[in-house]
């Protein structure tokens, strides 16, 4: 087994894991912070 031949695979997996984790965190965060911006209610409040 040559360690270097696995380096690209390990890097790709690491990057994929980071992106997947970030996707989940950002989606949850944005949903918890109100999601899509609503139409301003205007005069009343």
């Amino acid at each position, binding site marked *: 087994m040559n360690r270097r031949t696995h380096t690209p695979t390990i890097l790709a997996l690491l990057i994929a894991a980071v992106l997947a984790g*970030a996707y989940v*965190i*950002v989606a949850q965060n*944005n949903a918890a912070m*109100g999601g899509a911006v609503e139409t301003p209610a205007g005069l*009343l409040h």
Partner: protein
Amino acid sequence: MHTYARRSLLSVIVTAVLITVNHLYPLGTRALGLGAVLVVAPTALLWWFRNTRSRVAFAGYLLMNLWIVVGFGLIKGLWKSTLPVFVGTLLASISTSFPRPTLGPVPFELSGILTFIGSLFVLYYGYRLVRANRDAAAGAEPEKPIARRPVLWAASALVAFAVIASAYAFTDQDRWIAPANGVVKIGVIVPASGPYAILGNSFLKAVEMARSDLRGTKYQYELVLVDIGLDLAQARTAIQRAITDENVDAIVGGISRFGQVTKPLATAARIPHTCVCSVTSIGDGAYTFTNIPSPDAEAVQWVQEAQRRGIRQIALLTQDYPSIHGHVTALKAELARVGLPTTYVKEFADSVTDFRSMIAQARASNPDVYFVEALSPQLELLGQQLFEAKIRNIASVVAPSVTQRPELFEGTWYTDSDLRDIGFKQRFEKQYPGTRFATHMMPYAYDDFNMIVRGENPAVYIRNIATYEGTAGTVTKAPGSGNFQSRPAVWVIQNAKPALLSQQ
């Protein structure tokens, strides 16, 4: 060397594409210009270097690499995207002394993180290129990269990340800096002119009353009135000036369209901002918090009262207006949930002045109650024509409390904000004779001010509030939420004045 030159340039181009995608959000199509510079300049410089061995070209190429690594990779990608997403979110979940990070859309944040990762490749292949160039200049064979001491490398990377994450945590934590003169400035963001002026003036008076009611506080509180007018750009400038020039320590505001303008400015300044706003997405739980009954809460209370009164069918006559839309949508959903039918539904434009035909059609549908909601002057016109038609079984949400002619709505019941102590309203009207008491805003303005001054560190204190007993009754907030929930009350127009039904 050619191999590293190709890989270096490839990593630069890929990272430049990611930077462009990331900057499409703040810059729009101008980001394409930035991307073009980041692709064309390094390509041209490397081509120049490989053809002439010019040191200037090589130095220029390396400077472009440095810009990408430091300016975009570390500052933008690592500090502003990667650390907030992972470390900021983790810290906010552990302690309320850390704000929940304000994150952009998923593609924006992912492209930011990828920019950081790409910049590491730029750094690595830039380094290999420099080494290969040095070896070539010395006439030696280029050294092949060998993974030496991988555990040491991994440990070093972890230590570096821990140090950077610690620095981020240090800067991310909210710390209260007591004002040197003991005076805390609170900006009051309300329109003092135009059609909002009545509400704005009432709001300011409620905050002034809250301040004058304070006893034995550690600091003195100075109110800074920020007249935001009507134009949103003018409002943004006025709020920014209050933050940077007046150095306000917190903001209380009302009316959603101005709350939306204030929110990013308060977040950037890291000062708490409470808003009597019905648009719940304004409250982020970090620095901005909304406090007013939601349309859903109004609808639930309204339908409960309708059922209590034995109402079985309802006619809806409402104006086409955003906040009224919110109430009507929530009301329809709640009516459907409990199985109460609507016999007539009509939404009218603000140009309508003759409501007689729609009143006749609504009457023909034989409703038990007419749900009416509109703004002045349509509200008064509709009220007058309902009065002339001898229709007295009218109900609403909020609107009768702001009508110019409450006598037209004698006996009308409606839901509006609660008042735990009616004495608050009486005291307000005595203290500020001639100033309208807008029930749906004043108690919340009073309570919002008090929430800010109660805690040593206002932002952290408000984040920690789960239940608050104020003049608007009990309001609650779920952990991490930016919205205080409150239960509205049922009011009746009696002797041309709003009266709480529970106190009849």
